[in-house]
């Protein structure tokens, strides 16, 4: 109908006006789309840095800070990151390195270290060290300072030595967890994990739903048994970050960062390449509440050679839409792994076994959201009906994908 009306003016003066309007729109569109074509797919690298919410960086990240806390070391790390980022091919965006002035719609990605935990304990005559480094590929709007997406990454290294690990040894191990190990003893490093993440992540500024771990409850027995060296907040951070990491990587979705007390402030302070950014973390559309329940160790069988034990982890997962208080998933998942212990072994590192089953449980649950059937639900949640809830959660996670 509209077309007919327009055509009826074909030979009149109105046609000239229409032509003029058409030309004007064309010019405007070309002018507008030129910068859009350049800008829409560009992500600007903001450098490496630390998440520094209410913390002193040198105290909270002592070894990481030693490795790249000084301007010279930071420059060295940034050069390495730029070199590696220059080679990646991500169909969703191009990475630019000339971040300078603020402008509308400019998106920045930072390599943000948000956790460094080193624990050492004596087991028998040996010393065991566990090093955890967590980071994020953090996307934010350079002008509004709003967090747009976060892809969590984490690496863990466990080693045993007959002698205690001194400061230099710890520093050397952390350095290898950053830059890689020439002897190839340590297979992974956080820099390469970041690069791998940047290669495969999806990013767009289209409106989509946001999800995050908003609350973690650690039941006392679970903490004292498995995380005796960590504070309560540090344990919560570990659980939230690990779950976020598995959820993000298994579903290819961004997960907003977790921080103790963050629900109140909604802020995240990040230092990238020497510049402090106070970033706004938007409220999540879907909140995940995790409760870590006490671990269990049950003897499965025993003979002259040794005993077989089942190590069990239990994690309650509650996914809510806070506004309507609708629960999409509310279940306690369990996972058990068998470990054979020879009779000759006097000391057993139960903590490592418990941590391992917990991580496998998180990986299994987040990876099975789209495929869990009744048998799976019965096995891992003790209730076949949970498969229906997993399907609902699957729909939610689809909405969170970029």
């Amino acid at each position, binding site marked *: 109908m509209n077309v007919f009306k327009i055509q009826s003016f074909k030979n009149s003066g109105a046609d000239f006006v229409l032509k003029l309007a058409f030309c004007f729109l064309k010019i405007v569109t070309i002018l507008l789309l030129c910068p859009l074509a350049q800008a829409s797919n560009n992500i600007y690298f903001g450098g490496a840095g630390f998440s520094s919410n209410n913390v002193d960086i040198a105290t909270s990240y002592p070894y990481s800070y030693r490795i790249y806390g000084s301007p010279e070391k930071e420059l060295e790390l940034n050069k390495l990151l730029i070199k590696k980022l220059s080679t990646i091919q991500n169909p969703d965006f191009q990475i630019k390195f000339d971040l300078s002035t603020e402008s509308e719609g400019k998106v920045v990605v930072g390599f943000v270290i948000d956790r460094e935990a080193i624990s050492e304990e004596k087991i028998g005559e040996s010393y065991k060290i566990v090093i955890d480094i967590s980071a994020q590929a953090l996307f934010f709007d350079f002008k509004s300072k709003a967090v747009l997406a976060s892809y969590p990454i984490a690496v863990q290294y466990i080693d045993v030595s007959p002698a205690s690990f001194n400061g230099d040894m710890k520093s050397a191990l952390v350095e290898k967890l950053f830059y890689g190990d020439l002897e190839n003893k340590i297979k992974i490093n956080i820099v390469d994990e970041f690069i791998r993440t940047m290669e495969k992540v999806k990013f767009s500024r289209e409106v*989509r739903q946001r999800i995050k771990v908003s609350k973690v409850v650690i039941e006392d027995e679970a903490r004292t048994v498995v995380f005796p060296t960590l504070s309560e907040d540090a344990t919560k951070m570990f659980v939230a970050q690990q779950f976020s990491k598995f959820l993000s990587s298994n579903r290819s979705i961004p997960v907003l960062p977790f921080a103790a007390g963050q629900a109140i402030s909604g802020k995240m302070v990040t230092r990238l390449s020497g510049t402090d950014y106070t970033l706004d973390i938007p409220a999540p559309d*879907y909140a995940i509440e995790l409760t870590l329940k006490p671990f269990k160790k049950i003897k499965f069988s025993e003979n002259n050679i040794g005993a077989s034990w089942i190590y069990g982890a239990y994690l309650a997962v509650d996914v809510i*839409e806070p*506004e*309507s208080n*609708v629960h999409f998933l509310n279940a306690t998942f369990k996972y058990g792994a068998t470990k054979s212990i020879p009779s000759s072994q006097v000391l057993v590192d139960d903590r490592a076994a418990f941590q391992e089953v917990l991580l496998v449980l998180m990986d299994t649950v987040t990876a099975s959201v789209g495929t869990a059937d009744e048998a799976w639900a019965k096995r891992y949640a003790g209730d076949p009906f949970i498969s229906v809830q997993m399907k609902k959660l699957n729909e939610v996670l689809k909405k969170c994908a970029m």
Partner: protein
Amino acid sequence: MRYVTLFVVLLLNLLFVEWTTAGEAPSAKGSIEVNYTKKLSAEDKASALKKAKIKALDRYFAETEIENQDNYETMRDSIINNIEDYILNSVTLVDENDEKNKKYTLSIRIDINERKLNKTLKDSSTVANSKNTEKSMMTFVFVAREKSSSQSFDDKKYTRTDVSIHANQSITGNQQKTITGAESERISKSAVETSEKTDSSIKQNAQGKLDVSEAVTTGGSTTRKADVVEWTVSSTQDLDATFTKIFTGAGFQVYAAELLEESTGGLLKTSAFKEDYRHGDDLSPKTQTNAVKGVKSLNVKYLAIGTLDVGLSDIDPVSGMKRVSVKVTAKILDVSGPFASAVTSIGPIQFYGTGTESDVARTNALKLAASSAGTQLVNELNAKSVH
């Protein structure tokens, strides 16, 4: 074909506008539960969606300043009748139909076109709807200051002790009872000290029984004297620009006080304001009376005055960065009548600015305080239909 191209061009233009604004827009959530009788209809769902959008918008305003809420209340019907004009995007978070209980739950998040919404509220205000000739003239004097010295006084204490002695005796023979007492008072600049010493002794040379009881009552008072504070008054050029922008944007004809000084024959003197505020929180009657007379003589209807007190730098507990507070107190006087009367006042309100250095935090705090206080004053004026 040409019209298809035209359509595509238009669509691309629209897309571009949406894309650039998406990152900046504030958002709000709304949730609704609908009970239906037979079957959930398309009308039920459409109605629920509109109600959820209204709820989200109501919630957005519920979390803004009270004056903004008042302005929204005035315009609410008109805004919700055209609610789509103020929403950039709507995202469905929950869309659940409980057929068994005949209950439909919908939860959404909307991205709000804040600029358009603010424009509507501003355009609806009395001042915006006044003709240029009806728009009132306004001038203002805002002073930013920091404590330069503070003299504190110790508490002045007065303590009094009363002692009474009661004795019951039943003796035979001789006895001698001596009670000696001394009371002294020492007064110094900062304190008054009173002391009393009582000695009692009883000598007796007889057989018998003596019961002595002593009651002590203490009391007194403490006098406190307020600190004497001196302020350093700093330049307000940046703040003036902020206030001018906000008041002009609200439709007032705004004139810088410095430019009016000469025309008022020196009655309005910003230096007199600064001198008064250097010593305390109040203007001297002379400064105030002269300013009102001067402003009134130029037919300027409103005089806005206020202070922005910069606090000491500390550490922000959330970010760990340097933090500076600014306390704002302001009022607007209508000087058109026989006597000046306050049409609105705000504060004291505390604002905080953060930064890597104290100077940055201070600047951020002052900028935030000036823009927030200015906006709040304008919202109050709009709510009271002052123009």
